[in-house]
């Protein structure tokens, strides 16, 4: 049978020939949770009567959401994770290491893996050709204990990014545009498989951004074929040995094929309060902003910080605007530090905070005030997301974020990059 990437990976993990719609119990390669979902997973492991985890070296607890902890309740949750991990020999990625999804990409995910994570953006690892999906704490607890989960093999929607990307337009704009087209439930229960002449040439950082947001269309995962660009990335990370080629078979059955003409895509924003409320920046009225946030598992990578620094070099953040920058991992932080990127950002008026989820989750490091507007490179703009239901979140690319922070309102980065 000609298989999609998802059908292929799930079949390989069960030893049977599975197709979309089949339900199977499968072995998983990596199980992870974070400080928001891990403590409940730990209590569920204990409740089920397990005394350990099946595969300790591939069982990871990330402390990234409330990191460093802003309250004693979080601090105590962190203790729960550290103590449990130490007891069962599992891995802890502690304060300052960075965001779970970024660390998986840098150090764990291999093409062809099945990864389940107690975080909805676990689909980010799909960019390396893994079948990676988010689940709740009890599913994750079972994953830790048994290194197994159950899946319905998803139908796949193939998305071909075609033609060319215009100057000032980035991967973030492509995925926001796509979600605007297919809506926030346009891929619910499905896998998105990304390709096309533009898609297959995208850098790894661009693929990470796109796979990260697959869940914002409801998708179970967002997956790219692994290729030379994947191999190069893994090599740079010292992990070339885990490369393997994964791609769909010719004649694989897709539920739908969507061709996106990238040449018509402009810099995009998602307006409050849903990601699919997407419009080109050029069509917006002047929207005054109070805070700009560059970071997260979507856009906190080196290339994101670099483009922001390139735009901000020699300029100042507008009066009345707070620019918050959070590198997604320690490695990114160090590289941005060594290459002068952070210096440029700080010189321009940015506040740089320690690696982690930052203000995206509404816990700390930049909670919005009543009526305030934030322009963010994160993946979600739901009401209340950044800690205040009376605030407004627009999401965009790092270039749009950086240029807007100079202008004081949401502005088109082609004005400076064009």
């Amino acid at each position, binding site marked *: 049978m000609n298989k999609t990437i998802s059908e292929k990976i799930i079949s390989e993990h069960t030893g049977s020939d599975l197709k979309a719609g089949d339900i199977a119990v499968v072995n998983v390669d990596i199980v992870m949770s974070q400080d928001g979902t891990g403590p*409940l997973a730990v209590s569920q492991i204990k409740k089920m009567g397990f005394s350990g985890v099946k595969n300790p070296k591939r069982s990871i607890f990330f402390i990234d959401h409330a990191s460093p902890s802003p309250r004693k*309740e979080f601090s105590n949750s962190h203790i729960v994770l550290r103590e449990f991990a130490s007891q069962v020999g599992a891995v802890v990625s502690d304060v300052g290491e960075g965001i779970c999804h970024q660390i998986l990409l840098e150090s764990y995910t291999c093409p062809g893996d099945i990864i389940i994570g107690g975080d*909805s953006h676990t689909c980010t690892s799909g960019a390396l050709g893994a079948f990676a999906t988010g689940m709740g704490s009890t599913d994750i607890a079972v994953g830790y204990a048994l290194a*197994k989960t159950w899946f319905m093999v998803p139908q796949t929607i193939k998305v071909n990014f075609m033609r060319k990307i215009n100057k000032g337009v980035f991967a973030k704009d492509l995925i926001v545009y796509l979600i605007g087209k297919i809506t926030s*439930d346009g891929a619910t229960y499905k896998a998105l498989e990304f390709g096309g002449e533009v898609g297959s040439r995208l850098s790894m950082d661009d693929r990470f951004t796109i796979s990260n947001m697959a869940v914002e269309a409801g998708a179970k995962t967002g997956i790219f074929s692994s290729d030379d660009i994947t191999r190069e990335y893994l090599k740079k990370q010292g992990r070339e040995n885990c490369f393997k080629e994964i791609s769909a078979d010719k004649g694989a059955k897709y539920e739908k094929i969507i061709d996106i003409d990238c040449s018509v895509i402009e810099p995009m924003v998602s307006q409050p309060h849903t990601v699919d409320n997407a419009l080109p920046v050029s069509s917006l009225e002047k929207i005054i902003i109070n805070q700009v946030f560059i970071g997260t598992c979507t856009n906190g990578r080196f290339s994101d910080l670099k483009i922001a620094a390139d735009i901000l070099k020699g300029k100042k953040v507008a009066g009345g605007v707070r620019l918050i920058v959070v590198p997604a991992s320690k490695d990114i932080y160090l590289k941005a530090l060594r290459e002068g990127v952070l210096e440029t950002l700080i010189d321009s008026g940015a506040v740089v905070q320690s690696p982690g989820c930052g203000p995206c989750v*509404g816990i700390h490091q930049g909670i919005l005030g009543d009526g305030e507007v934030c322009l963010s490179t994160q993946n979600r703009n739901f009401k*209340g*997301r950044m800690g205040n239901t009376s605030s407004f979140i627009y999401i965009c690319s790092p270039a749009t974020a950086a240029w807007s922070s100079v202008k004081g309102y949401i502005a088109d980065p082609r004005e400076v990059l064009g």
Partner: protein
Amino acid sequence: MSVSKRNSEILVGRSFKFGDDISTDLIAPGRLFHLRSNLVELAKHVLEDADPGFAKKVKPGDFVVGGRNFGLGSSREHAPLIMKIAGVGAVLAKSFARIFFRNSINVGLPVLICDTDKINSGDILEIDLKRGEVNNKTKNLKLKFNPLPEVMIKILNDGGLANHIAKNKGFNLWDI
């Protein structure tokens, strides 16, 4: 709750109607993230950002009725869990986000896909889980809902995933 009891049970309660795109941020907001270690306290704030009075008004057995894409967003299982702790008997919606749907089954909260346009806040609903029928007693209307996949019925009948795994010492999804 025993298997047979749940299956034969008819759920009866009042409806609380919500709109489309009720995110997990509205059900269990990030600003209350620190209460995740105290679920009973967190449950006092369930759905607060969608309806500030909901947690005080809801009575055991009442239903949450949404529109399209209910539960979108985060993987936080705390969202269906605190609805259950608050006494919600089932969630009805036109469609559900994937992770929320799966989490609800895992915590033993029935989630039903049906046309919720014909349900208003305050309507008294009688839900027959086995027959796949919602009887809107207030409007004297009957609605059908799609049956769950058999593996999910199995997990739900075992009282959620943790109980299923503990009882069977692993997965045992197919001897239905």
